């Protein structure tokens, strides 16, 4: 569907939002809200935990019924788009952060500041990690609360490290150290030195954003008006990745094969979202010693990890349903909610009390050392910047295709490839 058609169709909704009444203080009559959720579209822990959250919420709020709408993450914006145009009820949506700009600017997601009383909003934000709150903000307004999110972690196979004479107690902390360790692994074993989740159709651009930023580069400027992935600092980071690929350290496989290589014990190092931790643990169990450390940096620069995952955004037009959606949002991002999300699905909590208080997961966290790098990075986490406008997917895809070609292609002209793609994507900005 053409964005202009959607925009026109949604114009009424947006106008309606501006004129919407204030949400009531409480729900006194029975109300049903929809929750577009991608965990419900999976089988296993994510769906079970989500259903558990809904059950607990409905028990605590007998007047609110939640209808879960399962949609795979890659289809969530198109589904919401179609449902809004079809006049379906869309209340709360689990939006992947790359689509947050589109959700806010084209689909009519509400800024919480517009619909929630200021005092109530401030009270709810107390105890939340400031960096985590920023993940759902655009131009200072909160369109989503981080719900299931994670950070990039360098997993490594300690058995392979020992086998080639590397010290698993001192894993690489910089890209230079990764290159050094990678050469040793390459020369003394048959294992893949370094796998990653940076490239491939389903990889998105989130991890690349963090890598480029860690060299003080970036993919787009702060006000999202100019692409910057061909600027010198970014270029240097991409060139470094190409050097790793040329040396046979960074492997060129599709994103799923890289994950499975690590899970099967065939890769020595693996840079990827902490969300895959459960999968890797299941693969490593009884097979090898899986460990994790923080995302690598460039030289003396502090790494600047960002997040993958999703936030929750409210689309309801009706004040009562806005209140019900806000109550659900508050519940799942409460200490109790994040406890379930962290323990049962494997994502990060936005409230540190969850991992620090014995009442919640302090004991559990101490038993799960792989979580530590993830928690450590929370204090300096940065947002996954969404590309602006209706072409956000095309911009990210074009950019990532160019970077992948620059890293793994036959052409040594990295600057030329990136500059051409930057010019092309600049033309796609609104």
């Amino acid at each position, binding site marked *: 569907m053409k964005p202009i058609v959607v925009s026109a169709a949604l114009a009424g909704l947006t106008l309606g939002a501006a004129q919407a009444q204030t949400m009531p203080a409480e729900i006194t009559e029975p109300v049903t809200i929809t929750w577009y959720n991608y965990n419900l579209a999976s*089988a*296993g822990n994510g769906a079970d935990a989500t259903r558990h959250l809904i059950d607990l919420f409905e028990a605590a709020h007998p007047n609110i019924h939640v209808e879960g709408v399962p949609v795979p993450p890659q289809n969530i914006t198109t589904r919401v788009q*179609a449902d809004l145009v079809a006049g379906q009820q869309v209340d709360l949506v689990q939006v992947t952060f790359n689509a947050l700009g589109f959700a806010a600017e084209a689909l009519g997601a509400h800024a919480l500041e517009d619909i929630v009383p200021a005092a109530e909003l401030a009270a709810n934000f107390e105890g939340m990690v400031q960096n985590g709150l920023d993940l759902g903000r655009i131009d200072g307004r909160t369109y989503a609360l981080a719900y299931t999110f994670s950070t990039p972690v360098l997993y490594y196979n300690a058995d392979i490290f020992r086998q080639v004479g590397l010290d698993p107690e001192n894993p690489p902390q910089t890209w230079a150290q990764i290159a050094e360790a990678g050469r040793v692994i390459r020369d003394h074993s048959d294992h893949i030195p370094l796998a990653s989740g940076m490239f491939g159709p389903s990889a998105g651009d989130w991890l690349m954003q963090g890598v480029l930023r860690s060299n003080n580069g970036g993919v787009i400027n702060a006000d999202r008006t100019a692409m910057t992935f061909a600027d010198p600092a970014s270029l240097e980071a991409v060139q470094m990745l190409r050097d790793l690929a040329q040396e046979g350290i960074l492997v060129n496989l599709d994103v799923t094969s890289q994950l499975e290589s690590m899970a099967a014990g065939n890769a020595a190092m693996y840079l990827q979202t902490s969300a895959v931790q459960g*999968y890797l643990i*299941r*693969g490593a169990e009884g097979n090898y010693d899986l460990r994790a450390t923080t995302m690598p940096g460039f030289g003396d620069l502090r790494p600047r990890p960002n997040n993958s995952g999703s936030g929750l955004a409210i689309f309801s037009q009706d004040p009562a349903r806005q209140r019900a959606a806000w109550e659900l949002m508050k519940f799942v991002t409460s200490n109790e909610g994040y406890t379930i999300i962290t323990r049962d699905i*494997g994502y990060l909590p936005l409230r540190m009390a969850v991992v620090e208080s014995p009442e919640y997961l302090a004991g559990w966290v101490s038993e799960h050392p792989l979580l530590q790098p993830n928690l450590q990075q929370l204090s300096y986490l940065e947002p996954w910047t969404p590309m602006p406008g209706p072409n956000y997917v095309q911009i990210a895809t074009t950019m990532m295709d160019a970077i992948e070609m620059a890293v793994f292609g036959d052409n040594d002209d990295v600057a030329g490839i990136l500059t051409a793609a930057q010019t092309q994507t600049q033309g796609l900005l609104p």
Partner: protein
Amino acid sequence: MTDTALQAPARPVAFRLRFGTGWQRPLGHGLMILLSLLSVFPIYWMILTSLRPENEILSTRIWPDAATLDNYAYALSAIPMLRMLVNTFVVSAVVTAIQILTGILAGYGFSRWRFRGASLLMGAVALTWLVPLQVVMIPNYLLVARLGMIDTLGALILPHTASAFAILLLVQAMRSFPSEVYEAARMDGANHAHILWHIVVPNLRGTIASLAILVFISTWNEYFWPLLLTRSAQNSVVQIGLQMFITAEGTQWGPLMAASTLASLPILAIYLVLQRQVIASFMKSGLR
């Protein structure tokens, strides 16, 4: 005529295999065995993976050290697998029946009646075959939403009640039906309904069976339309169920392969029971 044409190349192959001299015969057999093994291997790997325990799921050994049915138990409990299989069967069977019915009626009309604009209409039907599903998905979705049919099996069936493929195939088959038979029936006083249901259709059983198999398999494998339409696993189909084991946090290969094995069984049964017709249907219609 078509059947004769189809059988024609089979004879020389059989002839050569039977009477091939010396090295040709074992070579031919060896090649066929090799191709058969290559064809069967993905199915074998699917079943093998479905029987592996979780910590061996990424193993490349061609035989599991310890087989388990845990993945089947998990697949059946994690998603409403049996319900999805029933839904898929119902949708596939109904779509097949309706497409055959509309195809027969339209095929008879186009092949037997001359009316103004027939060629134009036929061209329009043929053109719809060229429109990708993705183009009409959203308009269809809006229509289904207005009819209040979202998340129903009826909505999975509704857009597939007629297909250009079925109509064109049956028009072609009916046009090649001997005109003398039509004329004789008319002279005996038979009306169009009688001719269609008592003379044409019984004589086109082979073509209709082939078409039914193709439509059934195609509907069974449908993914995008159910993905857009269904809001609950209970009202969904098995292809959506399979996708539920593939997540951003990693693919659950064991349950996915167990569910895929279960989902393949009905289609496998069709192949086993109607092997000859299935092969003939693909040859008659080309590989869709």
